[in-house]
């Protein structure tokens, strides 16, 4: 049984269909990439999964449980957390306060251990523990957004464009860390416009076009597919 199974998902903004029947699966332990151009429905897919924009029809099963009508806080509780598009860290809160917010629903005793883990993954965050997140660089804020999502101790981590607007050298760092997070046992669903990076770390990929899945294959195969190269890899 896949960890996440999405079937014929349709999501609307008002009367505009953003997803017109998206189906995909993510197995436990995988990194899966969604690529596609602007407006293809990548972010909407993530927002539908996390409950921020509930789908109109179709099903989302997580661990076999239907969650397409579940409110966001219960989805976080079930083990899905998200680093949202454009990072959206709490600008006037410190790094530490942001990370604490990530553990908002938790009351267990492991929070401190997870905080140490996030600081191990992103030593920069430890250095800036008391700094307001709004005063940090884009790359640092992206690290914080990922770290904050990890503080919920997710089984499935949703990452929305982790390379957007970030210096290339930091993108390398962030992608190394994404692989490390996955090795530590977190399944990852990754959305990227920057397909090169994403396909480099993932096992499988889906290509979204105007709200439907146009193509799906192993990441290596997608990277060598001439159509994908032309449209998304700038070859």
């Amino acid at each position, binding site marked *: 049984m896949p960890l996440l199974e999405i079937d014929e998902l349709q999501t609307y903004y008002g009367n505009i269909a953003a997803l017109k029947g998206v189906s995909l699966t993510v197995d436990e332990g995988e990194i899966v990439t969604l690529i596609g151009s602007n407006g293809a429905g990548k972010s909407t897919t993530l927002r539908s999964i*996390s409950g921020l924009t509930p789908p109109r029809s179709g099903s989302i099963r997580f661990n076999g449980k239907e969650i397409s009508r579940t409110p966001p*806080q219960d989805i976080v509780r079930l083990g899905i957390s998200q680093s949202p598009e454009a990072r959206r860290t709490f600008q006037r809160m410190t790094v530490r306060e942001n990370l604490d917010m990530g553990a908002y629903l938790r009351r267990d005793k492991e929070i401190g251990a997870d905080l140490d883990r996030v600081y191990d993954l992103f030593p920069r965050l430890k250095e800036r523990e008391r700094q307001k997140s709004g005063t940090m660089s884009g790359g640092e804020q992206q690290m914080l957004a990922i770290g904050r999502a990890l503080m919920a101790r997710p089984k499935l981590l949703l990452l929305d464009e982790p390379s957007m607007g970030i210096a290339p050298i930091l993108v390398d760092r962030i992608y190394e860390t994404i692989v490390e997070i996955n090795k530590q046992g977190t399944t990852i669903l990754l959305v990227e416009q920057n397909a090169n990076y994403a396909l480099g770390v993932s096992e499988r990929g889906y290509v979204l076009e105007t709200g439907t899945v146009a193509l799906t294959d192993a990441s290596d195969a997608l990277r060598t597919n001439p159509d994908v190269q032309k449209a998304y890899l700038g070859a």
Partner: protein
Amino acid sequence: MSNLRGLLKGKNNLVVSLVALGVAAILPLFFDPLSNLTNNFILAAAFVVMALGLNIVVGFAGLLDLGYVAFYAFGAYTIGWFASDHFSSVNGGEGFHIAAGEFASNLPGIHLNFLVIVVVAVIITGIAGMLIGLPTLRLRGDYIAIVTLAFGEIIYRFAVNGDEITFGEGYKLTNGRQAISPIDSIDLPGFAPFDSAFSLRPFYWFCLVLVGIVLLVNFRLRDSRLGRAWIAIREDEVAAASMGVPLVKTKLLAYATGAAFGGISGAFLGSYLTSVNANNFQFGFSIFILAMIILGGLGSIWGVAIGAILLSFINTYFIPEVFNEVPRKIGLEFDLTILNFGIFGFLILLVMVLRPQGILPERRRALELEGVGAGDAIEVRAP
């Protein structure tokens, strides 16, 4: 480490609160117990309670509420209905009493002890707060302001025209501009009944106790999980939701707690002024309270308290007493009090230009508006 800091900070606030309340408690002893100044102190304290309530909604949770007067009205009508002879033929004209004072316990109508009234007012305004919260849940920013403004206006209209809404044995909903009066005075178990003809001090001290409670609740809430959730919603609603903050519940709790403080203060003012008049519940009052928290510093508990005291004294003392002769001296024949709101508006304008973060800003906002870390350039978030 941060726990230790939190404790120290908490202690500081406790010490400052006790000192401030202690000084405030001694203050009226220097003035005549019936003096106008004592009256001004009482009103200022009552407004501190209201402003701190509105601060939870606007300052903490970031929901711009322009209809706060509605909760003043609900609180005031709670005492109007349940501590006067408004429902005069209840119980066959015998009246209905719960722990009512000696004087009130022989009167017709419903007469509950003030402490009971406070509980009832909290319940009624809390529910009213959630009711106004519901339609605003899907809205953001300015749209919340519009809906709450309309709500405040609807309640005012009901208050004004309530004398034509009758039910039961000819009971009126309100007395409109005729006012429900007299209202029972406060009569606490173990204390002599409060008598405004004899001394105003007990009213003041009682209201200071209310201020103390409200301060305590504010500090505790701000540093609680709920408080952090409010601030997260204020900072970024979508991010807060994706962290698992339940938006509906968290926002409704902000409206309900904020409203409850308005209700407590409203009930107190009803009793102190011994009447509940629909004229008191106009839109301008919402702005009056909102101006206090903007002047003091949105979200800052001490700032809001100072803002409330300042505006209250400008309204009840400086404009009508200290500066009232100014127009006459420069050859103009008018009463300065008619310019009340013009003066408030001018003050807000001054604050916005000279010190937009307020007199005593909240730490978070202070940093932003003083441009700390400007070298690091706060990035504009992509749309």
